[in-house]
C-alpha cells in the first residue's frame, strides 16, 4: 500500500525579546510599505531599537503588535492612536 506523503510545513521561530528585524525585513513580514511602519512607530504601536529608520531593529513582539493594531483599527473602526492605546491595554491585561 502506498501511503500519501505528509507535507510538513517548516515553521520559522520568531525569537522573543531579540531585536532581530531591520526595517526592510519588518516591512516584508508585515506586508506593508515603509511609510506604514514609520506611522506605527510614530503612534507608539511598535518600539524599535535604534535611532532613525535606517538603524531601527524590531522584535517579533513588534510584529505581533502591528498586526493586532491593524485588526483593531479595521474591525473597530478606530484610528491608529486608538489602536495603539488598545494594544497597550490588552498587553497589560495579559501580563
Amino acid at each position, binding site marked *: 500500500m502506498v501511503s500519501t506523503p505528509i507535507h510538513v*510545513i517548516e515553521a520559522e*521561530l520568531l525569537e522573543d525579546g531579540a531585536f532581530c528585524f531591520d526595517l526592510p525585513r519588518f516591512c516584508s513580514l508585515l506586508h506593508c510599505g515603509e511609510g506604514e511602519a514609520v506611522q506605527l512607530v510614530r503612534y507608539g504601536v511598535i518600539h524599535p531599537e535604534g535611532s532613525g529608520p535606517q538603524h531601527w531593529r524590531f522584535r517579533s513582539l513588534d510584529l505581533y503588535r502591528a498586526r493586532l493594531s491593524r485588526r483593531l483599527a479595521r474591525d473597530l473602526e478606530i484610528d491608529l492612536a486608538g489602536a495603539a492605546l488598545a494594544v497597550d491595554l490588552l498587553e497589560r491585561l495579559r501580563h
Partner: protein
Amino acid sequence: MEYKDYYKILGVERGADADAIKAAYRKMARKYHPDVSKEANAEDRFKDLQEAYEVLKDPEKRAAYDQLGSNWRAGQDFRPPPGWGGQAGGFGAGGFGGADFGGGGFSDFFESLFRQQHGGAGGFHGGGGGGFRSQGEDSEASIQISLEDAAQGAQRDINLEMPSVGPNGQMRREARRLTVKIPKGIREGQRLRMAGQGAPGMGGGPNGDLYLQVHFQPHPKFRVEGADLYHDLHITPWEAVLGASVEVPTLEGSVRMKIPAGSSSGQKLRLAQKGLPGTGNKPAGDLYAIIQIVVPKHIGDDEKALWTQLGEISNFHPRR
C-alpha cells in the same frame, strides 16, 4: 441554508439609520472582537456582526436584503427567491474592497444573496481585467504542545478553519489540516511563522502568512518559567534530617540527586541545564527541585512509639 436576521444580530430596528447601524456595530464589535473578548463563541459572533454590518452599512446591499421582507425569522430555512440573481446583478461591483474582506468567508446565506456582486467584480478574482491584486491576510492561531515536544522538537497536526477561495471565486471558510514542525527548545508564548499558509491572495496576489502561538499543556510534574522547570520534590522527614540520594524526574528521564542533611521545605536544589534546551544564542534552562517534606498521615504503634521517643529526647525547638 438558514436565514440571517442582520438587524437582530446588530440589535437595531429595521428602520435604523446609518449612524445607528454604525454605532451598534462599533459597540458590539468591541464586545465580541476575538482579540479583545472573553465571551464564549466570540469569533462566531464577530463574524456574524461583520457580515451584518457589511450588508446594512451599504445602502444597495441593505435595500436588496430588505426586499426579502420582514416575515423571515432567524434560522428559518431559506432559498433565494426566483429571479434573485437578476436583481443582484444590479448591485454593481463597488463597495467590496479587499481591505473590507477581513478574515474572509461570510455565510452561505450572504453568498447566495450577493455572490453576483463578488463575481462581477472583474479582476477581483483570477487576475484578469481590472488588475486588482492583493496580498492575503495573515492569520493567527494557537497550538498546545507538551513540554516533551518543546524539549525534543516534534511534528504536530493542527486543524484550522481558514478562509479559502471557492470554485466561483467567492471567499468561504473551510477546515484545513496542517502538519507543522515544532522546533526543539521553543518556549511558552513564542510564535512560529509559516510563510504562505494564511488567507489566500486575490487576483494572483500572494497568500498571507500563518502565525502560530505555542502554549504548553499543563505538566503533571513540572511548572515552567521561561526555560527553567520547577518540580516539587517530596521527601520524608528522616531524609530531610539525615540527607539522602533520591530520584528526580527530568525531561530526559530520572537522575539521582543528593539531598543535603538538614534540608527544609521550600529549599531549592538546582540541576543545571536540565530545563528546556537552548536555542541559538539562548542557553538551556535549569531544573529546580523544590523540597516538600511530607509527613505520614497514618502510622502504626511502633512508629508512634519511635516518634514519641524522638520528641522526648530531641532538643530541637523551632518556635523558641
